């Protein structure tokens, strides 16, 4: 073992030890809630820092290989690291560090509740599970860790199990995640049988012997399994329910990184395990990505529940990432390795970016929910005066996720556009049109995302408070603000100086596609494909910071009136300006609801109760205008009805008689023995 490898191994062991101590410590100190909270999350924080080091070292080219045969049957517990794994470890760490810091203060509200110790334990197990999934090097290790990650997150979602809404969300999450797991299991076992090896690293070489139909089948199964975890439409239905139900630091991790492991899997099957695929694989991913991006942001736009809005926006961002991955696979299948790398770099960089701004937004939402005790934006407003720092951080997150300069979302989305525009190098008209449509989808998504986050930030933080809770809101503890500040700074740094990471990602992508992207990443400009397009995040940031200051100075010099008078908002002559005059979240989204009515199929109900004496006096007006999800109605309701009907029939075998059950076991055993011989 090389000395560098020994160091890597030690870092890994220390990281896992931290998570282990955190998980056990949180449980053992359960009788002392304060202690349990601190031990659980502080260990998670240190572990996450270890993961950051591990990821950074791996991305720079560090190697690692461990096999512990005693821990698991068939191949043992096998871990390893390559650049792609290292990048995803980095992504996990970037989201986990602020989330853990935030959790130390945030979980204080849970002191005195029974769920606290379990939460600390689950949080560590969740982090460890995610890190080990991307490091897993054989089938069994991967599947066991995947399941551990899913179960840990399930228990975290169920933290507030006393709410009926949470129970429903948890149930749906459990069902969907296991449906996905079943697909993965079958896919992995098929692959292992066909290639004759359980080692994931050997699959790339071994997959060349696969028959064509088998490759398609395995691709479809694994894509379904990973797609469910990523939350792509139409497999997304668990996501907008489970993410808001979890505590905010857990939502931050589930939305920020857990769904990215679905992306990790898709990148693995598309570029690594199955080799170069036919063009329909990439095309399918591209189409699913475009649909997820547009529909995700459209559903986010009409949400009035702040955390639900953020969850739907994760569906959108997964869609954007998949546009990069799908485009990469398509370019790859047309032997355009350099372009495939560019698209993959864009997709992976967006993955990292989303892992910085989505936790930031969830932490901000958590702070707001903490202060106002509601998730409904219609009861917020005016918080920028009461929580000025949280407001700034949430604004940074909003600008970043709307992909506006000078923050990080802009860099990845610009790269994405650049790589999609380069699709004219393929000479197949159908494919070109597919790309044209996905460019339009990405553009529509970015416009709608800007609208969505104007709504999210504007309705929540600006104007007058809409409820007494919002009026009395107070700024959060310093640790929560510090965590948000860290993420906000990360958004700015990744947006202004993306150079180093983009270069490393270029190497990572080249490992998968066999060619470096034809792009130069320098401090003062990113140049794609021989000056096909250039952008300089650094200089844009410099200009956006210095120009407003210059304008202010210029106005002073030319003698503008610098006085300012504070007065009430002009109210059309009305004497009183109250929050009732403000535009609401629902009203803000209404133009979109009308324009895209075909997708939302809004239910409109207007119920006016008149006074019994005279119709000129109105007692109450009830107005309901909700968007419905076409997927629930058209896809999942029939499936769940069918499952229910089958389950009803199958109940006859469940008599409650132990002797009968023993008979079942006996029959099953005989049948199995007969089959085996």
């Amino acid at each position, binding site marked *: 073992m090389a000395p560098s490898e020994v160091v890597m191994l030690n870092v890994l062991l220390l990281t896992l030890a931290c998570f282990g101590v955190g998980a056990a410590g949180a449980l053992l100190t359960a009788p002392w809630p304060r202690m349990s909270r601190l031990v659980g999350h502080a260990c998670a924080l240190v572990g996450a820092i270890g993961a950051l080091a591990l990821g950074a070292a791996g991305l720079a080219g560090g190697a690692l290989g461990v096999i512990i045969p005693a821990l698991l049957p068939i191949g043992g517990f096998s871990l390893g690291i390559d650049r792609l794994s290292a990048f995803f470890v980095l992504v996990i760490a970037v989201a986990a560090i602020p989330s853990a810091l935030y959790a130390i203060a945030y979980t204080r509200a849970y002191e005195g509740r029974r769920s606290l110790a379990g939460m600390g334990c689950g949080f560590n197990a969740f982090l460890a599970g995610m890190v080990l999934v991307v490091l897993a090097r054989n089938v069994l290790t991967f599947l066991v860790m995947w399941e551990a990650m899913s179960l840990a997150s399930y228990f975290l979602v169920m933290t507030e199990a006393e709410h009926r809404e949470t129970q429903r969300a948890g149930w749906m999450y459990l069902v969907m995640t296991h449906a996905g797991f079943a697909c993965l299991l079958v896919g992995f076992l098929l692959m292992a049988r066909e290639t004759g090896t359980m080692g994931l690293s050997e699959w790339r070489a071994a997959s060349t012997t696969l028959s064509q139909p088998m490759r398609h089948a395995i691709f479809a199964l694994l894509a379904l399994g990973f797609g469910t975890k990523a939350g792509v439409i139409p497999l997304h239905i668990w996501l907008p329910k489970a993410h808001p139900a979890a505590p905010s630091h857990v939502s931050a991790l589930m939305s920020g990184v857990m769904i990215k492991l679905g992306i990790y899997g898709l990148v693995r099957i598309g570029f690594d395990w199955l080799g170069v695929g036919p063009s329909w694989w990439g095309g399918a991913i591209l189409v699913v990505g475009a649909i997820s991006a547009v529909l995700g942001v459209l559903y986010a736009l009409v949400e009035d529940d702040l955390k639900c809005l953020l969850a739907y926006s994760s569906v959108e961002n997964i869609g954007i990432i998949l546009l990069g991955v799908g485009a990469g696979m398509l370019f790859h299948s047309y032997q355009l390795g350099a372009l495939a790398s560019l698209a993959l770099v864009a997709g992976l960089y967006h993955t990292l970016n989303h892992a910085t701004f989505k936790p930031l937004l969830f932490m901000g939402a958590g702070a707001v929910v903490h202060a106002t005790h509601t998730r409904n934006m219609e009861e917020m407003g005016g918080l920028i005066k009461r929580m000025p720092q949280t407001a700034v951080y949430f604004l940074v997150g909003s600008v970043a996720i709307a992909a506006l*300069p000078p923050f990080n979302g802009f860099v990845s989305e610009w790269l994405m556009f650049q790589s999609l*525009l380069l699709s004219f190098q393929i000479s197949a008209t159908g494919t070109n049109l597919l790309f044209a449509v996905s460019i339009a989808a990405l553009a529509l998504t970015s416009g709608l995302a800007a609208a969505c986050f104007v709504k999210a930030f504007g309705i929540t933080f600006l104007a007058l408070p809409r409820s007494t809770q919002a009026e009395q809101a107070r700024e959060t503890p310093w640790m929560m603000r510090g965590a948000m500040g860290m993420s906000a700074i990360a958004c700015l740094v990744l947006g202004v100086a993306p150079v180093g990471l983009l270069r490393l990602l270029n190497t990572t992508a080249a490992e998968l596609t066999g060619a470096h992207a034809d792009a130069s990443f320098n401090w003062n400009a990113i140049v794609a494909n021989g000056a096909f397009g250039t952008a300089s995040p650094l200089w844009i940031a410099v200009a*956006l910071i210095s120009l407003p200051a210059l304008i202010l100075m210029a106005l002073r010099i030319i003698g503008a*009136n610098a006085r300012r008078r504070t*007065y009430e*908002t002009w109210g059309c002559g009305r004497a009183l300006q109250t929050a009732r005059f403000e535009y609401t979240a629902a009203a803000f989204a209404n133009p979109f609801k009308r324009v895209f009515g075909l997708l939302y199929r809004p239910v409109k109900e207007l119920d006016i109760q008149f006074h019994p004496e005279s119709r000129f006096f109105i007692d109450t007006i009830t107005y309901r205008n909700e968007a419905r999800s076409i997927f629930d109605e058209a896809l999942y309701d029939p499936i769940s009805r069918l499952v229910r009907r089958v389950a009803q029939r199958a109940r006859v075998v469940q008599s409650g008689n132990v002797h009968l059950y023993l008979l079942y076991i006996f029959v099953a055993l005989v049948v199995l023995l007969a089959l085996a011989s």
Partner: protein
Amino acid sequence: MLTQFLIEVTQLLIVGLGAPLLIGLVRRVKARLQGRRGAGVLQPYADLRKLLAKEAVVSETTSWIFRFTPYLLAATMLLSALLIPLLTTRTPLGFVGNIIVLMYLFLLGTFFLALAGLEAGSAFGGMGSSREMAVAALAEPTVMIAIFAIALHVGNTGLDEIVRRGASDPLLLLSPGHLLAFVAFFIVALAETGRLPVDNPATHLELTMIHEAMVLEYSGRHLMLIEWAAGMKLLVFLALLSNLFLPWGVAFTVTPSALAVAFIALIIKVGALAIGIAAIETAMAKLRLFRLPALLSGSFALALLAVISFLFVK
């Protein structure tokens, strides 16, 4: 180095100082077409000066975002003035951003303006913000597809390269794809700059307005910056339209005579487009808000046709 610097300064001056003149010209031509005499073309300068001299009244419900937005908005427009090829095919700051960066800069301005519209807490501002974001979101796909059409055609998304290709190959300018992309881009320019038939820049306090409703609470130097930025946005869009699609007269070499020709050509082209806008605004009524998607999807279809025509007529 010095010439590069001088070119950038000239561009800033042309866009910064020319914007009020352009607004004045559109208003004057419109008045004439409607049989009114109208104010002189220099009136917007007087308006801006008057606003500068007044104190700013700021609503008590607002925060720093409201006061910061006018400066940011003007800054994004000045930055875009530095990025576009105005007189020469060489934009010295071209490396800072291509046409996609430009579109994102506009969106950044719109984003903050929409937030500022929500700040005052009146129904007007919120309504304007909501509508402005709807128009911006629906216009975005058209912009990008039009850019795709141009990129197909030129093989580049850098603004200077697009102009250079167009100027050196005049026949390309007459291809159907190019013309379709021009029309699509023109409609989007009307939507983005808040002109008829999308928005009426001449009304205040109508329920139909978009941009004006959003900036209703602004006064004094803040309003001056916003009006100035709106003028610059119009000028930048018209300059883009004229130089990307009709690149005649743009200077290839940095000589005084070429620059003088380029300057006159720019004035003629932008002036012609301004007269065109005035004519459209006189001849057309404002569309109902919910008819706008039809207009914008129409322009999207044109842009898509432009792409298709490039793909088939290679």
